[in-house]
């Protein structure tokens, strides 16, 4: 067994939270730059240029890429040979709290009924998965809610089939218009149960932007949805052009014979994510 202290987890998460807010990862920066290259609208090209400049300013000045520094979503892959000395879940929340405080990030978490801000940006939403090995992997996805609010889930009848999946995803992204800050990254979860579909839709966002699913039929479905979205012409900020979405990531999970859950988790162009291995 390999031991890790709770404090190690806290400090790692603190650093991930700060870095995620102001240091846009290479995958999404490259996707934005590639979108600018193929963009057909001159206004959209200039807007993409501003988004790239925005990322540069953020990195240089340690200023958040977007003022909505999100609700923290933490994915933990806990190796079965790892023992965390102390309270893992408390250590994660403390890391998020410290990151938001020390990084001058916005506290955006509130009680759902009273709407009173917790002033710490906690609690984060935490998903823990037990995996083989003696390492602990932390992924931090600060989720802005302009895009999160545009997400949705349908329990389709199996007769809807693949065509029904494509139509639902396209319909949701088109209906979202400029609200989620396009060009978006679309996470899609197909199968499982009500909550499993939503969870894998979010996990799909952790995949490097544009990396295709290893299953050929799933990859083809991703390409089909992406092509349809970009053909519609909503474009950057909803102001027209051929870059409504940068990528579609679709994950599947076996489901009930009666069921076809489809979850669409929309992510803005400010697709902030960081991970580390302890």
């Amino acid at each position: 067994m390999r031991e890790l202290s709770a404090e190690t987890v806290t400090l790692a998460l603190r650093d991930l939270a700060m870095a995620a807010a102001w240091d846009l990862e290479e995958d999404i920066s490259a996707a934005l730059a590639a979108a600018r290259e193929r963009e057909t609208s001159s206004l959209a090209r200039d807007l993409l240029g501003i988004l790239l400049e925005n990322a540069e300013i953020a990195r240089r000045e340690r200023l958040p890429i977007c003022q909505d520094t999100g609700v923290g979503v933490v994915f933990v892959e806990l190796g079965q040979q790892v023992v965390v000395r102390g309270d893992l879940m408390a250590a994660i929340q403390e890391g998020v709290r410290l990151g938001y405080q020390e990084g001058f990030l916005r506290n955006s978490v509130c009680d759902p009924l009273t709407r009173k801000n917790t002033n710490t940006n906690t609690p984060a939403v935490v998903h823990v998965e037990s995996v083989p090995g003696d390492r602990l992997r932390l992924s931090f996805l600060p989720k802005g809610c302009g895009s999160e609010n545009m997400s949705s889930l349908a329990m389709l009848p199996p007769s809807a089939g693949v065509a029904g999946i494509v139509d639902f995803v396209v319909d949701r992204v088109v209906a979202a218009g400029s609200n989620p800050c396009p060009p978006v990254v679309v996470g899609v979860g197909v199968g499982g149960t009500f909550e499993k579909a939503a969870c894998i839709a979010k996990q799909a966002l952790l995949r490097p932007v544009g990396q295709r699913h290893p299953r050929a039929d799933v990859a083809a479905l991703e390409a089909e949805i992406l092509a349809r979205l970009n053909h519609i012409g909503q474009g950057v900020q909803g102001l027209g052009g051929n870059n409504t979405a940068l990528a579609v990531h679709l994950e599947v999970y076996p489901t009930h014979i009666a069921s076809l859950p489809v979850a669409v988790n929309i992510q803005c162009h400010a697709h902030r994510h960081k991970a580390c291995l302890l």
Partner: protein
Amino acid sequence: MPDVFDQLRKITLPLDEEVIASLRAGDLVSLSGSLYTGRDQTHRRLCALLDEGKPLPVDLAGQLLYYVGPSPARPGQVVGAAGPTTSYRMDAYTPRLIALGLRATMGKGARAMEVRQAMQAAGAIYLAAIGGAGAFLSGCVKACELVAFADAGPEAMFRFVVEDFPAVVINDAQGRDFYEILREARQS
């Protein structure tokens, strides 16, 4: 600054009547001057004050209200990241504020039909700022002062002085909607 933005029409805030009347859906503008900010909680509280027959902390007549909840400023900074939040969440409150004389709002995303009708009736406009460009837009904010609702944290109401703040006119005072114009052009 990229090419298209060299041709922005420079506009001074608060907006004057002639400027409002001359703006058209789709115009790219660059704003300089003072504006007020507010998002969900500020709107909720402004309307609660109206319900109670109490005065508002500021006179909104003739003003522009920018939907933003900035991130905290580091020591020595004017403001943190300061890009727009999604506007539809304010739709439930906006007609009431327009009735008080509010002349412009700015955020991102489309507005409800009731808001568009209220704007057209009052000759008010709605602008979209660049969503997700909070660090870039922070540099256009030259002063920031707390106006009201301090306990709402990032949702408090501030007064900004902005300089060369870029935006797109979405709804003009004549009732045109730029998102709708673009959608119709795509479908035809």
